[in-house]
């Protein structure tokens, strides 16, 4: 009997994506299983809207299938998929801006938060945290979500945001500082 093929479970994300690129599309399901919750949670925190996050997550994995030929195997798959999630969010944000004046966007985001919080059965503190997060500028929110909620290392984030590790750290600390102010302001509101 020939030796068994390498188990799919042991294949790295990069190896799987390379097989998808080479035409074995079924393996995309495994990448979906490994990453869809992370991408969904990233987008939930970025948009503050569960429904939009689900649509955008769908969009990210469709992009993964459609643009599979553009995947560079030397790039970490995680960086590639997060980059697509960022692009999907940026497109969504642009569309929202075209639909409403810029200052309405934050209101809309805030309006959707109680529903989101209710749907997620969050405790009061978590509701307040999401509200405080929504008040941050996009780049701060993104850095915080990636490093503190998604637990990505500074090095990984620096890689796909094209920043130095030191710069990521400084910005994350500033974002935490601003989040602290927002969070405790809401406590007293």
């Amino acid at each position, binding site marked *: 009997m020939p030796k068994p093929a390498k*188990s799919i479970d042991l294949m790295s994300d990069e190896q799987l994506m390379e097989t998808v690129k080479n035409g074995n599309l*079924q393996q995309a399901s495994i990448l979906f299983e490994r990453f869809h919750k992370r991408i969904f949670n990233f987008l939930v925190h970025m948009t503050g809207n569960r429904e939009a996050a689900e649509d955008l997550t769908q969009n990210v994995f469709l992009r993964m299938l459609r643009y599979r030929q553009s995947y560079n195997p030397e790039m970490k798959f995680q960086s590639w998929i997060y980059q697509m999630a960022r692009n999907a969010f940026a497109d969504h944000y642009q569309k929202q801006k075209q639909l409403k004046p810029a200052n309405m966007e934050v209101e809309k985001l805030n309006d959707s938060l109680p529903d989101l919080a209710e749907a997620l059965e969050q405790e009061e503190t978590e509701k307040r945290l999401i509200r405080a997060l929504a008040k941050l500028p996009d780049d701060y929110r993104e850095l915080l979500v990636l490093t503190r909620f998604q637990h990505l290392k500074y090095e990984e984030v620096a890689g796909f945001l094209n920043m130095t590790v030191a710069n990521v750290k400084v910005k994350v600390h500033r974002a935490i500082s601003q989040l602290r102010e927002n969070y*405790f302001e809401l406590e007293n509101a």
Partner: protein
Amino acid sequence: MDKQKWESRLIDYIDGKATEEERAAIEQELLRNEGVRTRYNQLTELLEVIKKTKVSEPSISLKVNFEKALQEELATQTKPTKTIRFSPMLYRVAAGFVLLMAGLAIGYKINQSKIESDKLVQLQKEVEENRRMMLAMMDNQLSASQRMVGVSVAYEMERPDDEIVSVLVKTLNEDVNTNVRLAALDALGRFSSDNQIRNELINSLKTQKDPVVQIALIQLLVEMKEKSILIQLEKFTRDTGILKAVKDEAHAGILKLS
């Protein structure tokens, strides 16, 4: 020291990233400076809340829609790319089949001329061994990838025998892995002109519980213009326990078949 710098030092302290010397300096400051102490307490509370944030679960429709999109993308691919070409195992098994089919033909000629009949016996034995190997792969409960390879080999066959059809049907109806079920459906779909296989597909629609496979089955049977499934499709549209994506597909099927 400015406020931001203090916050940064406190965050490193809470994260356990401060040096021993730095820790001692911060602890001293915490004792004597109320403002720093307040910020420390707030940061500790905030970082703890972040740590305890629940992971949100997406709805099942996200997975169903992705699998559907994947099947559509697969359908646009040309048939040869459905083969798992990168797999050395599949290469071996597929190559083995080609070799053995050729071997059988050669064996037949050999038999006809009654020369080297021992070689024919050997070849027939090898055909059977490879066939068994494929069936064993399809029955490997520990590895979905092995089952997938087995099913993919069956897909490449000119016409599977009854035992292979029976294993494919079992896989379609019972395999725990959606992708393996879909691959079995693909393989059976190639021989849908065969009445037995056609009936197995119709029966599978009645018992199939996997929504992704239900959708793919409906699409295939509608493409086959199989009007006998109309009653089943009607049932799907009324069933409250069925996913919306499946209901939509059933509605579309009814429209196309009516």
